[in-house]
């Protein structure tokens, strides 16, 4: 509602005649959104979804509704950790023990008797996980989660 006669902080800057003229010609709201049946149905639909979720869904929505920067930071940090530690089933360490220990096996297609594949890497002696990257990832994840939790608490205060 327009405040009828509340003076602005700088009353007089806009001459009262101009102000009154503008107000008199500006239309007011007549439509009541909540009286519209189709609109109410859409609101009820959202309300049903909200009510059905339960506390866990509410917590998840609250976290997902957090600041974009913190969300992106959490996702990137988690991805960094997974990539440096290795995803189970995808990492080289998951290769079968038979292949790994058979570096001395003669090459199947080799014409030289007794030739061995010297190119087969020794996975057992492969590099350890990139520790500094994991530390950076863990720090990033912790900071992002803390920012999300802080934002969640502020919104629920």
């Amino acid at each position: 509602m327009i405040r009828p006669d509340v003076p602005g902080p700088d009353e007089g800057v806009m001459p009262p005649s101009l102000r009154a003229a503008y107000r008199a010609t500006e239309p007011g709201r007549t439509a009541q959104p909540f009286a519209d049946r189709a609109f109410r149905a859409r609101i009820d639909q959202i309300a049903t979804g909200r009510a059905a979720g339960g506390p866990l869904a509410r917590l998840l929505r609250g976290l997902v509704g957090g600041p974009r920067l913190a969300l992106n930071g959490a996702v990137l940090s988690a991805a960094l950790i997974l990539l440096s530690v290795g995803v189970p089933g995808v990492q080289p360490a998951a290769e079968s023990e038979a292949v790994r220990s058979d570096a001395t096996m003669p090459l199947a297609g080799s014409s030289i008797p007794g030739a061995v594949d010297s190119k087969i890497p020794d996975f057992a002696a492969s590099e350890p996980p990139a520790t500094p990257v994991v530390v950076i990832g863990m720090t990033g994840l912790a900071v992002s989660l803390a920012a999300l939790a802080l934002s969640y608490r502020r919104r629920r205060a």
Partner: protein
Amino acid sequence: MGDGEQQGERVQEGAERLRLLAAARSGDAAAFAALFAPDLDLAWRMALRVTGEPARADDALQEGLLAAYRHLDRVEPRNLRGWFVRIVQNAARDGERYERRRPTSPLPEVGEHGDDPWSRRPYGGSGEIPAPSAGEPAAVAEQRELAQRLRGALAMIREERRTAILLVDIDGYDYAEVAEITGVSIGTVKSRISRGRAELREILGDLAGNREAGRGVEEGR
């Protein structure tokens, strides 16, 4: 009413809003309707000032309400009004962009005010405020003319400055409230108002036939 009483009322109002927000977040549609009921007029007016047409402001208000309900978990309780008003304003802008891409009726030619819908459709589809009728009292006709001059001048200044001037000079909000509604600092509000008023004075002073209105603004400094 004393300051203490007013403050008490504000605290009570705040507590009630928090209760409504919590209920709306857990799926109470009636609580949601009550939560934003005090802000509907302001949000609608802000949408109207973007679209220039009441029917489109109605649409923007509905879209804004739906978006607000969907994203209710994102809002911080201390600035519900500003958050909601900005959602409705953005819905109005989105609607305008959509209409510009798919115009359903021929729009009036774009004039000196650029492609600003606010200047194209001041409160109707025709593009102009209706001319005074023959039987209209002279005072009303004069008021209409003054409003049209002011509206024309406002259309020539940047949207954020126009919004700040309208909120302070027309609607009577103070700087702190305008800062809350528009989501900027009080300093930014003051700067926008100061620059907007300077532009307005210049435009009203320059427009032929607007000497009187220009003098009015000048006197108010």
